[in-house]
């Protein structure tokens, strides 16, 4: 009676090693694919463009609202602050690119100023955010 009981009590659980292997693989996958996107923090009414494409490395987002407010990294910033912030982010991750999301009714002058600031900070790769009516964003 007790002889049958003993082996069951010793091997208490299942073998965890294969599960650990699998979990490690998942972990490595998520580590590699994670790109920490700097969200702008607000929703803007984006213009529509049929030729809008996915920006593979577009992970610094700058939003321009209808009233001219500039938002980045979940904070409202002044136009003159854009350049130092971008410079700092560019040093941290040099492969980052910028997407400027301007509201439909925001002035093109504002857009040009923000793009100039980004360019002055050293990022050449700037895109204007738009919605594709055929889906995809």
């Amino acid at each position: 009676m007790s002889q049958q009981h003993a082996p069951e009590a010793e091997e208490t659980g299942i073998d965890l090693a294969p599960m650990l292997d699998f979990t490690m693989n998942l972990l490595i996958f998520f580590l590699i694919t994670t790109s920490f996107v700097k969200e702008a923090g607000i929703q803007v009414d984006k213009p529509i463009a049929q030729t809008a494409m996915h920006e593979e490395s577009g992970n610094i987002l700058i939003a321009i609202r209808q009233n001219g407010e500039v938002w980045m990294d979940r904070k409202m910033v002044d136009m003159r602050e854009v350049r130092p912030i971008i410079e700092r982010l560019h040093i941290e991750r040099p492969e980052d690119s910028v997407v400027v999301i301007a509201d439909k009714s925001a002035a093109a002058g504002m857009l040009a100023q923000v793009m100039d600031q980004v360019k002055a900070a050293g990022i050449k790769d700037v895109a204007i955010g738009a919605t594709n009516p055929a889906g995809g964003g």
Partner: protein
Amino acid sequence: MKTRRVSGAESGHSGIDLAPMLDFVMNLLVFFIITAVFAKEVGIQVSRPGSGAGEGGKESKSMIVTIYGTGDVEIEQRIVDVRAVRANVERMHASKPENGVMVIADKSVASGLLVQVLDQIRLGGVEDISFGATK
């Protein structure tokens, strides 16, 4: 009886205990799943012309599309409809495929109109677009 149980326990737990490690790895995994962002931003790539002297020659070869504050779009001294921009750009692109397009917008023009024009130019087959605004 007692000795048999001890030897049994040794052969059963041959390695180290993996459970705490698994707990830790699981926590890391959950963190990365939660913070992962798969949504990519969509947009239109445009270049911003610099004031550098080297780029001057290239710009002079470009076709110029002007957008006025009133919303009028001008190509080659003619006011055209936004929807006609594509046809004009296609015609230019067919005759001079190496040329780019320079869009000059009044600073008060709405971004919506600007993006519409940029979209039309891209539909016309030109990828090399520069954008400038009046001061």
